[in-house]
């Protein structure tokens, strides 16, 4: 039967089968597996049935541990059940997996294999997660490509039913999970034939039911446990055969034959690779090339890793083989070799054939490190060496333990008859979506095979995307980035400076640039390095002013279809007219439902794009020597770590040797300041004449680029000519104090929040405020100079500031600056505030999520330090354990403080009674007190340095703990409300002095908008596509019920003074504190410049009542429960329908939207009533 090919990625391919062959799907979002759950949820919401005609139930759980528990329960009660996960998620499932396997329960877990966090978290692909699961008793089947992700999803599903052994079906995270390929889908009738209903019934027969009661999951004693554990052996023995039978049946139905161990290569190969995963595709492709060149080499692609069939492996190895390199995409520190190596070694050793084979074990591709034909050739060279290394690494330069093998980097097997295009763009310009669309057009309209892989950076604002597109007549097995591009497009002019866009271009390649300059002037503005490459590589250059075309067509800054049209025009992959009509058709499909206006404007843009496209002939007189000289002059070098970080920033991290990296994942802070990303087109300009110096602009700035300093007039003597300052307003400042608000022009993201919050209006023109946006370029040089001068000004004496006001707290130096968070982020201002208030004595435990990414994703960190070298120390442990992790900090600090105090008492005579006494009684309740204590500690250290007793040495190492430390536990709502809730609850109940800051965006932001228990009623989110029908969990009141927890609900945009007060009170309170901070987010669906206005609306509507509960006041004078906002003053709809997350439901299902709105409004009214009662009750109690 002819089957139309389709284009999809590995996640969709696996989910395609998993969805059709299961009844229950329990998931939890985790990169890169999340899309499998999201596809399933979307199909379920659309009522798409499985092969039995029923619609699978998809349920989102609170953690992967929860998902595994739900899967286990669902399986035990007889449903066909699956889940999708990766990395730490899989680790959280392990306990249940042992149980599921021990109970011989058929199921398939589909895994987008991802690195397990060690010295650092990584979202990218390797096999460290699945290898951690090999003890569980799950069978493990590896897919190497998108096609196999679909095929093996089905084969594993069939085999698990046949064998009763549960399966991990895994494929490489990102490389396969996110790679677009043109594949042949498995038709439903094939799926139907592969799944034997009798086996499904048998599974259901084993279910727990009161109609046939039995027990499972018992406890067993030493007398029988061991025997019982061995009782299932036969199932594992039969399993490989059952898998092979399923593969054979699948081959009979589809023509695609697979084997447990797939041999490819020369029939009389002498040297062999054994590996699994996407790297095997590159290996196969390379081996074909080498065999064609006369080499006797081959590879075995391992399909079924568990149960490991030694006999099947041995029979797959050609008799002629002399040397084998077994490649593992994981690392098992301290072992003899990595898991696959050990298994192959055992199999060869145990086989009856006494063969003299040299066996090497190599590690490759950790965290999606590239694995290329050149590396494969290098491995074969190692196998042929006189004394090959028994264990090696490949793909890196290991100059520390000398494990790495060398390879010829420029060895390439990329075929001539293949299109290879690299597209540089910004996340926001739609380059990736246009490329995905182009792939679909080419897949559907040509016989070409297609591949798309997309590289994103880890910044959330101004993020760069690089698309790698391959098209050609032959199947594409290259599971590595393009090395020889014949087409390069740069959709953003400014990226030409930042990236060496022609580094991968082959001679004669085409370069398409979106330029703001006319075709006859553009050459003049190109970077010298690029001009040189254009000459040297004989590049064909095309330009288009896409922004101008888009603007004229009324598309604003949407340039994606314009660049796509130019690509089709130049690349000629299909006749241009055909391409144009296909682009139009896809525009119609994409926007059809959303309105004719977009279709018309895009059509206009398409026509204009081709007219605007121009070929540019480089001037012949350009001198290569001159160009080279100008490039050399531009180079500069800085300190060691900075130079390493700069290399990573420049996209050359792959070139760093092992010795350049710290051995334990430790990095200095205050490094974001070297990035200077220059992503804003406009920056705020201060009108000092009308500014009232309220400090609100600095307070809300998410990127700490609006700074305030107060200083003595004398410092102005050296000020640059355009540096602005005025007399500081207010009687609190000493006379002659000057005041400046300065923007960091190269770090600003142009989010406008500062302008929006500015309360001042120009008397003559109310549109103008004390801060106004203006184009950056004309201001840049002067403002850079001003910024440098600003940094040279001294910080104001902290102890003289009234930091409980917004105005003066904002003169404090932020120690969290220039993060890569989204422009206008609603979370970062809170973190920044905490660092201003307590940063010099702060230690932070950060839950995985947005804040751990913008806080700690290489190359740089926004966490900073002051001129004395003091600043927050930061770490991220996991997603689920953050509260406990932070509590650990507290326990240690308390322990060390107690030891230090004890030592002070012991050494009282030596250090002096007065000093000792002062050290012990210091209350450190304000900045002045803390400053004094620091000075005492300095004196103490001085004295201790002259003492040599063990106690003195002990005290010397602990003396800093005599200064109060501030422990902060920071994370999002996904952590606090869901996965980390149990720990958070325990930590807050512990009574320990920790400060918890929940950045509540009401949704999983980092993984792409999945519902959390903080998601409000009526909001749409992934897994709540029809609007969440239950209310938001009231974490504040839950924790308030302990009575000894300081609890505050804050929203900076609604009441900034209350926010400052809450932070100060929470920190001052000698017990657990919880601050729940409303954080506007791009996942809410509106412009972030309106974030503060929405915070106000949230509070005014009663959705987000502001309060503070201070247990210190519960038994004394004053009211412990302070309501900081009034009751609902505007209808809830006036708040929520400003946001797409709510409004889209009115477009999807207006009746339900109305019903949920009414329910939500009732909920808000009720919530206010409860707050009032609570206020009454708690304030009465005292």
């Amino acid at each position, binding site marked *: 039967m002819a089957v139309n090919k389709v284009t999809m990625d590995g996640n969709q391919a696996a989910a395609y089968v998993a969805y059709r062959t299961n009844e229950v799907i329990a998931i939890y979002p985790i*990169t*890169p597996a*999340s*899309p499998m759950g*999201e596809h399933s*949820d*979307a199909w379920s*919401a*659309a*009522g798409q049935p499985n092969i039995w005609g029923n619609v699978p139930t998809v349920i989102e759980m609170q953690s992967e541990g929860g998902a595994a528990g739900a899967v286990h329960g669902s399986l035990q009660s007889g449903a066909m059940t699956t889940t999708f996960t990766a990395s730490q998620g899989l680790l959280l499932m392990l306990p249940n997996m042992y149980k599921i396997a021990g109970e011989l329960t058929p199921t398939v877990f589909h895994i987008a294999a991802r690195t397990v966090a060690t010295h650092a978290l990584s*979202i990218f692909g390797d096999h460290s997660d699945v290898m951690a699961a090999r003890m569980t008793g799950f069978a493990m089947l590896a897919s190497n490509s998108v096609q196999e992700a679909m095929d093996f999803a089905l084969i594993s599903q069939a085999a698990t039913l046949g064998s009763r052994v549960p399966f991990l079906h895994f494929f490489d995270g*990102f490389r396969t999970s996110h790679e677009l390929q043109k594949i042949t889908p498995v038709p439903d009738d094939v799926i139907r034939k592969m799944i034997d209903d009798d086996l499904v019934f048998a599974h259901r027969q084993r279910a727990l039911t009161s109609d046939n009661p039995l027990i499972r999951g018992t406890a067993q004693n030493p007398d029988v446990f061991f025997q019982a554990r061995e009782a299932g052996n036969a199932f594992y023995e039969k399993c490989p055969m059952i898998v092979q039978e399923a593969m054979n049946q699948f081959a009979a139905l589809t023509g695609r034959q697979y084997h447990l161990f797939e041999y490819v290569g020369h029939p009389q190969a002498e040297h062999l690779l054994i590996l699994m995963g996407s790297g095997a595709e590159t290996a196969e492709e390379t081996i074909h090339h080498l065999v064609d060149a006369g080499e006797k080499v081959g590879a075995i692609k391992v399909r079924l890793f568990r149960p490991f069939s030694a006999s099947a492996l041995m029979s797959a190895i050609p008799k002629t083989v002399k040397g084998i390199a077994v490649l593992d995409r994981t690392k098992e520190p301290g072992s003899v070799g990595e898991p696959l190596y050990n298994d192959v070694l055992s199999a060869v050793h145990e086989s009856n054939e006494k063969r003299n084979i040299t066996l090497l074990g190599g590690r490759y591709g950790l965290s999606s490190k590239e694995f290329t034909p050149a590396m494969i050739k290098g491995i074969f060279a190692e196998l042929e060496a006189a004394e090959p290394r028994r264990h090696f690494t490949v793909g890196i330069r290991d100059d520390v333990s000398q494990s790495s093998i060398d390879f010829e980097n420029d060895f390439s097997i990329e075929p001539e008859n293949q299109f290879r295009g690299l597209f540089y763009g*910004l*996340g*926001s310009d*739609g*380059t*990736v*979506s246009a490329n*995905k669309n182009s792939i679909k057009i080419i897949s559907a309209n040509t016989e070409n095979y297609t591949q798309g892989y*997309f590289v*994103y950076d*880890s910044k*959330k604002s101004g*993020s760069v*995307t690089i698309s790698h597109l391959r098209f050609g007549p032959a199947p594409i097995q290259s599971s590595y980035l393009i090395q020889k591009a014949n087409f390069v497009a740069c959709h953003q002019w400014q990226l030409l400076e930042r990236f060496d866009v022609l580094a991968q271009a082959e001679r004669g390649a085409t370069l398409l640039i979106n330029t703001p300059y006319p075709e006859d002037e553009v050459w003049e503005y190109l970077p010298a390095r690029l001009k040189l490459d254009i000459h040297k590589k004989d590049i064909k250059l095309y330009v288009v002013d896409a922004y101008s075309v888009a603007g004229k067509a009324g598309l604003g800054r949407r340039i994606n279809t314009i660049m796509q049209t130019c690509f089709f025009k130049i690349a000629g992959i299909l006749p241009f007219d055909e391409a144009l009509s296909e682009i139009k058709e896809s525009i119609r499909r994409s*926007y059809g*439902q*959303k*309105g004719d*206006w*977009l279709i018309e404007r895009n059509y206009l843009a398409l026509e204009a794009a081709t007219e605007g496209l121009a070929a540019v002939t480089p001037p012949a007189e350009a001198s290569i020597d001159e160009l080279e000289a100008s490039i050399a002059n531009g180079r500069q070098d800085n300190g060691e770590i900075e130079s390493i970080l700069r290399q990573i920033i420049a996209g050359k991290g792959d070139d760093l040797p092992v010795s350049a990296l710290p051995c334990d994942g430790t990095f200095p802070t205050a490094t974001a300041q070297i990035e200077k990303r220059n992503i804003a087109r406009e920056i705020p300009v201060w009108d000092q004449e009308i500014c009232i110096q309220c400090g609100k602009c600095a307070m809300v700035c998410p990127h700490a680029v609006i700074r305030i300093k107060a200083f003595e007039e004398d410092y102005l003597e050296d000020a640059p000519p355009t540096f602005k300052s005025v007399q500081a307003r207010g009687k609190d400042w000493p006379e002659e104090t000057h005041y400046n608000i300065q923007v960091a022009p190269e770090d600003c993201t142009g989010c406008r929040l500062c302008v929006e919050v500015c309360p001042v*209006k120009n008397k003559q023109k*109310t549109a103008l405020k004390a801060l106004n946006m203006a184009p950056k370029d004309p201001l840049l040089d002067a403002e850079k100079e001003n910024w440098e001068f600003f940094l040279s000004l001294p910080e104001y004496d902290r102890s003289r500031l009234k930091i409980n006001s917004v105005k003066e707290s904002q003169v404090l130096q932020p120690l969290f600056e220039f993060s890569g968070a*989204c422009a206008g982020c609603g979370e970062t201002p809170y973190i920044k505030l905490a660092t201003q208030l307590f940063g010099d004595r702060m230690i932070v435990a950060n839950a995985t999520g947005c804040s751990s*990414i913008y806080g700690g994703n290489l190359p740089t960190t926004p966490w900073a330090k002051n001129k004395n070298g003091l600043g927050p120390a930061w770490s991220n442990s996991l997603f689920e354990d953050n509260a406990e992790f932070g509590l650990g900090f507290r326990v240690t600090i308390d322990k060390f403080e107690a030891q230090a105090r004890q030592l002070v008492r012991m050494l009282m005579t030596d250090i002096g009674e007065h000093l000792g006494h002062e050290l012990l009684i210091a209350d450190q309740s304000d900045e002045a007190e803390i400053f004094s204590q620091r000075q005492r500690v300095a004196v103490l250290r001085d004295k201790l340095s002259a003492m040599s007793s063990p106690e003195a040495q002990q005290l010397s190492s602990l003396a800093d703990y005599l200064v109060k430390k501030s422990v902060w536990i920071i994370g999002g709502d996904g952590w606090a409300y869901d996965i980390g809730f149990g720990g958070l609850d325990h930590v807050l109940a512990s009574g320990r002095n920790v400060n918890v800051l929940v950045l509540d965006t009401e949704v999983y*932001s980092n*993984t*792409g*908008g999945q519902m959390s228990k903080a998601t409000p009623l009526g909001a*749409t*989110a*992934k*897994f*709540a*596509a029809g609007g969440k029908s239950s209310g938001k969990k009231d974490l504040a009141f839950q924790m308030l019920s302990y009575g000894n927890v300081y609890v505050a609900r804050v929203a900076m945009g609604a009441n900034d003074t209350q926010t400052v007060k809450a932070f100060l009170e929470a920190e001052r309170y000698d017990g657990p504190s919880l601050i729940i901070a409303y954080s506007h987010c*791009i*996942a809410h*669906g*509106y*412009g972030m410049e309106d974030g503060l206005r929405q915070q106000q609306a949230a509070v005014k509507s009663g959705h987000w009542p502001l309060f503070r509960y201070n247990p210190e006041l519960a038994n004394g004078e004053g009211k412990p429960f302070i309501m900081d906002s009034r009751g609902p003053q505007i209808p809830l709809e006036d708040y929520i329908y400003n946001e*797409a*997350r709510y*409004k*889209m439901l*009115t*477009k*999807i*299902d*207006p009746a339900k939207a109305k019903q949920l709105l009414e329910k939500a409004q009732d909920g808000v009214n009720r919530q206010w009533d409860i707050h009032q009662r609570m206020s009454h009750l708690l304030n009465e109690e005292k």
Partner: protein
Amino acid sequence: MDLSTTYMGLELRNPLVPSASPLSADVDVVKRLEDAGAAAIVMYSLFEEQIERDKQELDYFLTTYAESYSEALSYFPEPHEFRNLNAEAYLEQIVKLKEAVDIPVIASLNGVSPGGWIYFARQIEEAGADGLELNIYYIPTDPDLTADDVEQMYLGDLLQVKSTISIPVALKLSPYFTAFANMARKLDKAGVDALVLFNRFYQPDVDLATREVVPNLELSNSYEIRLPLRWMAILHDEIKASLAATSGVHTAQDVLKLIMAGADVAMLASALLKEGPGLIERILQNMQLWMEEHFFESVSEMKGSMSLLSVAEPAALLRANYIKTLGSVRKSGWE
């Protein structure tokens, strides 16, 4: 007592019609209006501009941050279908109202594009509306736009809709025309079935505390019937199309005055929003009491009895207020 009237070709049991307001969004409220005596219902307006804007915003915010960051290739669920992107809920409301009540249901449409007028007019007719009121909510602020351009635009919109659908079409207008009587005649000749006079624009206000321009909608009061009253009287004998008076109708007296001036129906919104559907019943009772007291037996008998051609002092209707006021003062013996 015969209160019946004919409006845009529809036979109505009396001249009280709730005009476009949020009241019609609730089927139960419309039932109560019918029970109270409303003769027809004009639905809340379908704003093409709002629909288009919503679509643009939705498209922008659902896609703008997508495909930017490796952990989150999108931030929102992809709905299987949007059931209300193109005002489907409005059309469903027409169907629901038609099922729920027996009185005529007149839809209200505010279009912005030629295609929009036609598309939505057709949809509204197919949904079963008995009539369509075109709510041309437009302020010509462009100095290059001439009075003739504006008039042609109104006529063009009307002709397009009239040629698209066969249900009667009313036009709700603002009073801001240089030659309103002439404009009314042109529209009449172009085939409009009724003129609804007049639209009340949101007039912006300035908030002195924030120094921001703020939208502001004050509910009407009875004083406001004076403007429609005059034009009912002027147009009653001039045009074939029906006349609906709207703005300021709060009492039976208001209704009686308007009918005498020439209105076929009087429309209410502010008063109903303030006092609820029961007001209609009270107005009808009071109207009947007045008619009984003054020996009127039917609305048709009363209609136009004080129009320009019927009134004793036509100049009082034609002159500007200034003259009339001085005259009144003189009569009252102040001079």
